[in-house]
């Protein structure tokens, strides 16, 4: 079976800098692959290559077996949910309009969109009666991210991309949303590529972790393997977990 997403010797040059170097990586249907790395290691760049926000300067990224450069970018993107740190909700749309955007672009009938949006809002624990008519500015950071997740799920895409979706939240809300993410994944079992710089988050939600260092793939391992993996960068990340390392 072809992998859902396949990076093949992908390099990316941006502004004269090699941001990604010969990245090769397969993502199988159903897994949650976490791209872990320091900031600047190329995680966002790698993620944006999957939905053709960026194209490789060498190599290719294949989605469902077809290189992103050969896809109709609009069609490709409507099959891929995308959630970013700042949520990127449309400030002039209500929650309902935000979540229903892709179904509307896809020409679903209004009744079907409405039913779908309300079901999704229930699923992310934002009762539609209370939240559907609100504007993003009337929501807390955590609520906004949940709307962002609902919006990404709206047209039932086979693949979801997350770029540090919980990075800007307070620790308590972050843990809540991580739990919700896990519950949601059990429920709907979608494939996800999830970017984070938080090793705890990576160990919690990943089926496999890809550690990026300076634009290269350093380690590719399951969470259990990752804990025992050799290498300086792995150790640097694991040191974040060590209670000895936390100043009193």
């Amino acid at each position, binding site marked *: 079976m072809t992998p859902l997403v396949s990076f093949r010797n992908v390099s990316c040059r941006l502004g004269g800098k090699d941001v990604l170097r010969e990245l090769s990586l397969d993502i199988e249907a159903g897994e949650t692959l976490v791209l872990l790395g320091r900031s600047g290691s190329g995680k966002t760049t790698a993620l944006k290559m999957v*939905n053709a*926000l960026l194209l490789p300067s060498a190599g290719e990224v294949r989605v469902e077996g077809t290189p992103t450069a050969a896809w109709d*970018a*609009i*069609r*490709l*993107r*409507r099959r*891929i949910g*995308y959630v*970013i*740190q*700042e*949520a*990127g*909700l*449309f*400030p*002039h749309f209500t929650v309902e309009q935000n979540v229903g*955007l*892709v179904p509307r*672009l896809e020409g679903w009938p209004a009744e079907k969109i409405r039913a779908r949006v309300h079901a999704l809002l229930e699923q992310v624990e934002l009762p539609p009666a209370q939240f559907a008519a609100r*504007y993003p*500015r009337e929501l807390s950071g955590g609520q906004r991210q949940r709307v962002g997740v609902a*919006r990404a799920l709206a047209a039932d895409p086979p693949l979801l991309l997350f770029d540090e979706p919980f990075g800007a939240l307070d620790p308590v809300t972050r843990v809540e949303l991580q739990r919700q993410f896990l519950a949601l994944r059990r429920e709907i079992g979608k494939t996800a590529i999830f970017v984070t710089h938080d090793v705890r988050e990576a160990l919690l939600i990943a089926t496999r972790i890809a550690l990026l260092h300076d634009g290269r793939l350093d380690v590719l391992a399951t969470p259990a393997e990752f804990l025992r993996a050799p290498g300086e960068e792995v150790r640097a990340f694991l040191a974040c977990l060590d209670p000895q390392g936390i100043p009193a």
Partner: protein
Amino acid sequence: MTLALWNEIVELTVEHVVLVATSMAIATAVALPAGILLTRRAPLQRWVMGFANIMQTVPSLALFGFLIPVPLLGGIGKHTAIVALVLYALLPVLRNTLAGILGVDRAVRESAIAMGMTGRQLLWEVELPLAARTILAGVRVATVATIGTATIAAAIGGGGLGVFIFQGLASVDTAQILAGAVPAAFLALLADGGLGWAEKKLSPA
């Protein structure tokens, strides 16, 4: 105040409003699409904005004068006045269209593209609604300025309230100057208030 004077005030005020409205309609019809195009052509931005800035610095009386000998666009009369007023009104509308669209939050724009919006959908559903307030502010500034500048149009036969002002200046008649200046000031306040209100009504972004 005689009835004849009153009638003349009304007549010239209407003429003034038509002059300003025509100029603003043309200026907006040119500057808005031009501004949108410029947001897609970063290298051109400096050149076009530079040209528009220079146009703005030419004293209005001089610009009216320069236009008189120009074939087609120039000569004596309303159309020359409109050409000059349009040239002045372009910059604020252009500048605010650029600023409004380029000022759309990066995360919002990126989400729109990542959701699979086409370029046209991005423009009509995201960029223009979010920039509408800023663009309208540019139209308001340009309209208020045009109402003032249009009084000078009388010098080249453009008509409007400037007719009173120039007659008053020639005959050193303060009352007559005021008959032009007061309605012009009133129009400017009205335009400022009306368009300012419309701005506030626009999208709560």
